[in-house]
């Protein structure tokens, strides 16, 4: 995104939004009295709030800004990243949701590495999960803080005033707001700001879709304009037209199955006050996620159609698709709402990662070494500030590197955690050794392939290129499932004798 003239409606929306989330942080601070409150909101959250929090944590600013830009560049093939939301909410609840919530009702479970520790009885496996969480968190968080800085810089026009100090100042401002409410109110603040942020995201996306529909003359008119244009052509609306099948299907696989390893989503199940609340969560999560995706589809169709009609000039930078459309074709108040919605999407993801990252440092790593931190609430708050500071500095100093790390964080979580959690909670035969090997494989293969295929910082490292179109994340996710299933198959065909009795009980339900 580039700097644009300051728009008073957008500035006002952003100021109101930032003031509201700060107020939620102040309110939630008084309700955060223990580590349980801080890390899992006291396990007192109802299903609607949990569903919205899950949805808004899952969607970062990418859905609002990156998605439409990607669709402008590669057409409907980009939708393979987001259309799994049609079934992933039910998929998540069936495969892991119930068992995670029931286990958290029987034992002190605040994090995914806690689950790994109880399921496998292995500090090594749990420690490895904590390392995966920390690596992914730094990547995700750094990318969110960087995006937050760029967006705040654009909304408030700080570059004209602060020059080269504009981006760090904007990053500090955005980071300070998230850190304030995440530190003061922990997950209580996290889920209630997520609820507000989620409602804002859905409302903004639906309203923008309506304007896309209107400005383009309807779905068929937009589609026919795109198909008939020289700039885009028929392949733009061919699901396998612009990307290799392996890439498009790889996206579908990673963003559907890989969801089972995303700690910021799994974490939400621990907070539910009553396991029966799971009943209608898939419906709420699925509908709200689908509503948000309307902005990806709407702007992704409208902008190429408007370019084909000559009503917009062709974009040099596809990431300008959403901002250009919003500023040119929607009322200022709606544009303001969407920019606040993007801030919301970024912050809701960031606050989740601050919380799980601090839990990984304060609870999971010490437990992997057989130790406990005495005052987890205090040190959890300190860790939130520390992680945010580290991720912000890392994001600012290594701007290219953080973008790279951010892009493969989802794949890292997926490959490292999905098989051990999803298969391990549903099949008693999976051993600690198989889970540990699967996590190590997922992490090493994913980080290795992604880093070696994309890095340009260290000339002396070899470059690895996969067969055209094959995604490193899909390879690493398949590899970690294969390792887990193969090693389990090699193990004796009976349940593990040392399986924790609570885990055994929950797997029976």
């Amino acid at each position: 995104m580039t700097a644009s003239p300051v728009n008073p409606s957008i500035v006002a929306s952003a100021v109101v939004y930032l003031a509201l989330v700060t107020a939620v942080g102040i309110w939630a601070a008084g309700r955060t009295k223990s580590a349980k409150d801080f890390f899992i909101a006291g396990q007192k959250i109802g299903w609607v709030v949990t569903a919205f929090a899950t949805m808004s944590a899952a969607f970062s600013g990418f859905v609002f800004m990156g998605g439409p830009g990607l669709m402008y560049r590669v057409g409907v093939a980009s939708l393979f990243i987001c259309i799994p939301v049609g079934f992933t909410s039910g998929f998540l609840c069936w495969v892991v949701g119930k068992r995670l919530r029931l286990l958290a009702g029987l034992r002190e479970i605040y994090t995914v590495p806690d689950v790994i520790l109880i399921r496998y009885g292995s500090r090594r496996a749990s420690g490895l999960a904590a390392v995966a969480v920390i690596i992914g968190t730094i990547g995700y968080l750094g990318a969110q803080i960087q995006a937050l800085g760029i967006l705040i810089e654009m909304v408030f026009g700080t570059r004209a005033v602060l020059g080269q100090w504009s981006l760090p100042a904007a990053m500090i401002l955005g980071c300070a707001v998230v850190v304030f409410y995440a530190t003061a109110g922990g997950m209580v603040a996290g889920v209630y700001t997520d609820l507000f942020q989620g409602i804002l995201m859905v409302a903004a996306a639906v309203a923008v879709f309506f304007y896309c529909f209107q400005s383009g003359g309807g779905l068929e008119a937009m589609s026919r304009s795109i198909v008939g244009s020289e700039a885009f052509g028929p392949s733009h609306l061919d699901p396998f037209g612009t990307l290799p099948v392996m890439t498009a299907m790889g996206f579908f696989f990673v963003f559907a199955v890989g969801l089972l390893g995303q700690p910021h989503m799994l974490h939400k199940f621990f907070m539910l006050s009553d396991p029966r609340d799971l009943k209608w969560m898939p419906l709420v999560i699925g509908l709200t996620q689908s509503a948000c995706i309307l902005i990806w589809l709407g702007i992704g169709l409208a902008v190429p159609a408007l370019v084909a009609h000559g009503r917009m000039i062709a974009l040099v930078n596809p990431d300008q698709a959403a901002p250009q459309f919003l500023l040119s074709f929607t009322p200022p108040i709606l544009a303001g709402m969407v920019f606040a919605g993007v801030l919301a999407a970024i912050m809701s993801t960031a606050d989740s990662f601050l919380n799980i990252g601090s839990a990984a440092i304060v609870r999971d790593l010490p437990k992997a070494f057989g130790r406990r931190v005495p005052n987890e609430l205090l040190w959890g708050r300190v860790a939130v500030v520390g992680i945010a500071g580290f991720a912000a500095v890392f994001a600012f100093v290594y701007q290219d590197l953080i973008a790279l790390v951010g892009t493969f964080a989802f794949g890292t979580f997926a490959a490292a955690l999905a098989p051990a959690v999803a298969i391990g909670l549903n099949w008693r035969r999976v051993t600690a050794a198989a889970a540990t090997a699967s996590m190590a494989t997922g992490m090493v293969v994913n980080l290795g392939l992604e880093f070696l295929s994309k890095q340009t910082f260290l000339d002396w490292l070899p470059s690895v290129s996969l067969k055209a179109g094959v995604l490193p994340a899909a390879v690493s996710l398949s590899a970690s499932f294969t390792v887990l299933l193969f090693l389990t198959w090699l193990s004796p065909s009976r349940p593990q004798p040392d399986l924790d009795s609570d885990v055994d009980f929950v797997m029976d339900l």
Partner: protein
Amino acid sequence: MLVCSWFSGLVAELCFVLLVMAFPAALIALAVARNGKLGPLWLPLAALTLILEACGVAILMLRGQILEAPWFGGFPVAAAIQIYGLWLGPLLLVALAYGLTFDRWELREEDLRRFNARRDRNGGRGQ
């Protein structure tokens, strides 16, 4: 899937599509089966598998035929299958199947009673 990614051509692509589309339903079946039975979920799971497989294969077979193929719901048929079939089709099927079978399969009264009894024995943590 891992093997498919080392090959090229339609057969490898078809195998990859079939496996990717079958994987979610297979994982759900592993999670929800009680004594090897899927109970009331067999029908929605079969429908989900069928929808995902049929849509995936249809999109693959319709590749490159945007101009010749008919249109549906504002899109060329391949894109319509992707949007209405892969995205919106499973949305209500899965969410409603989960909600409507929840009390008699996913978490029955009997399960909840056993869970509450165990939780109380463990010291009354959580729900």
